[in-house]
């Protein structure tokens, strides 16, 4: 019986692929319906046998009709997809003719099998008019059979009973289908969420790649460019014979190369994040601030107090968020000062990056994919199991506040 709902599942939304669970459910529902048909079959044969006897021909024909009914039922989806009306006509005809084969059991056959057909029509059509039509035709066939057999007592008993069973099945089918529809909607929402999540992950990866490129640009490329210039200067001084100045620049270059190497090492370590040794979070933030102040003329006022050890995941995402926020400040804010507050208390870390820039419309910016990396920041905060609050006032500045647990996400 329940299989009609599975048919409806397919009719309502073909985009949703059937999961293993749905297949199992469909199989169970089919088995239950077949058991039900078998019970009706057995009861009809026994009753006929006990009442006025059952000859071999009757018994064989009835068995063949029931087998055909079951086979057609098993392929209902395929048949009804192309010939829905033919399916109901043939099934109705089979049930109706089987009822005439067993005159003493016709009411059991009709009351037992016809309502199933009505219920199936909901699954296949899910249109009130067509379902009512199937119901009326079944009901008329049932009435005809009762009148044909001229059994007044059964007429009084079974006609309301048929009506009652059919109404119960229809009500149940409608209710169940509503649940199925709700489930499909939920699945659709989940699917959309999954796609959105994938997109966010892709953006996060793209952001990571950009960060890597930027790190390489800021460390190796610029360091080497600077070194070449220093070597050029040394060469020029040596050519002119001013060895003392050349030596001074050599000393300066050596110090510069060491710094470039250190920066490059840190950038490479970031790429191999799972194997890097424990680095102090405050120190890493300080380096980020140093880079920012060297690249811009924006003043940074910091208050970093971290006593607890910072888990790897929080380290990586926290540093990325700070870097992203500072990049936004440099690129878009036109700020003069940035305030960075990082504190840990009661198992939580609080990161606040505030500027006195021009501000932005948080409603618009947050919805623009790829703008300001806000989506990436949100996603990272979500991965940390934290909370984020972005407030921005036009011509006054922006404040991004993040709270995340210190316990979550240790990869090591």
């Amino acid at each position: 019986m329940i299989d009609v709902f599975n048919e409806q599942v397919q009719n309502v939304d073909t985009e949703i692929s059937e999961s293993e669970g749905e297949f199992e459910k469909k199989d169970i529902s089919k088995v239950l319906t077949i058991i039900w048909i078998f019970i009706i079959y057995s009861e009809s044969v026994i009753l006929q046998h006990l009442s006025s006897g059952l000859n071999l021909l009757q018994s064989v024909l009835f068995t063949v009709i029931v087998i055909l009914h079951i086979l057609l039922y098993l392929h209902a989806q395929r048949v009804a997809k192309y010939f829905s009306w033919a399916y109901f006509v043939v099934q109705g005809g089979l049930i109706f003719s089987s009822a005439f084969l067993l005159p003493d059991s016709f009411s059991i056959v009709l009351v037992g099998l016809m309502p199933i057909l009505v219920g199936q029509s909901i699954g296949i059509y899910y249109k009130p008019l067509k379902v009512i039509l199937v119901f009326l035709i079944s009901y008329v066939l049932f009435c005809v059979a009762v009148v044909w057999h001229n059994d007044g007592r059964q007429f009084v008993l079974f006609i309301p009973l048929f009506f009652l069973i059919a109404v119960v099945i229809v009500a149940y089918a409608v209710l169940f289908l509503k649940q199925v529809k709700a489930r499909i909607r939920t699945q659709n929402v989940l699917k959309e969420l999954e796609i959105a999540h994938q997109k966010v992950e892709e953006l996060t990866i793209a952001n990571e790649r950009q960060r890597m490129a930027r790190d390489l640009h800021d460390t190796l490329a610029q360091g080497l460019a600077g070194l070449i210039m220093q070597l050029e200067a040394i060469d020029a001084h040596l050519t002119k014979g001013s060895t003392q100045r050349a030596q001074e620049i050599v000393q300066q270059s050596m110090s510069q190369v060491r710094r470039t190497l250190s920066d490059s090492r840190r950038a490479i370590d970031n790429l191999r994040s799972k194997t890097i040794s424990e680095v102090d979070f405050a120190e890493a933030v300080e380096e980020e601030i140093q880079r920012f102040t060297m690249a811009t003329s924006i003043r940074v006022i910091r208050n970093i107090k971290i006593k607890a050890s910072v888990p790897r995941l929080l380290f990586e995402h926290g540093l990325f968020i700070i870097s992203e926020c500072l990049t936004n400040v440099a690129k878009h804010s036109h700020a003069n000062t940035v305030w960075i507050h990082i504190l840990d208390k009661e198992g939580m870390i609080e990161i606040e990056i505030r500027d006195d820039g021009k501000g932005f419309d948080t409603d618009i910016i947050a919805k623009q994919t790829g703008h300001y990396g806000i989506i990436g920041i949100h996603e990272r905060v979500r991965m940390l199991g934290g909370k984020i609050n972005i407030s921005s006032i036009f011509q006054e500045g922006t404040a991004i506040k993040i709270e995340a647990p210190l316990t979550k996400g240790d990869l090591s």
Partner: protein
Amino acid sequence: MKYKILIVDDHWVVREGLKLVLETNDSYEVIGEAGEGVTALKLIEELQPHVILLDLYMPQMSGLETMKALREKQNDTPVIILTTYNEDDLMIKGLSLGAKGYLLKDTSRENLFRTIESALRGKRCFSQK
């Protein structure tokens, strides 16, 4: 007379390197440096350099944006783009904004001086790479 040069690059290491190279030529004097476009525009107005060595990728205001702002102010101080990457579209954009040179940062000092001299004469000169 020494020609006044302004260096605009967001990387301190590059600014230092350029200063060291330029000090080897007595004709030039580095009169200022900036890490991004907004500060550069202020310094250009204040110091009135003869030549500007300008990086393209910078925070807050990029090199191309700085050049646009400069042209909008009717300031025709020669600009030499000095960048890490050899990108045709950037070179074309730089040219269309009136750049007098497009050099890679690993260029030789001779090439750098030649380009500065050409720029001072109002001519264009580009890196061989």
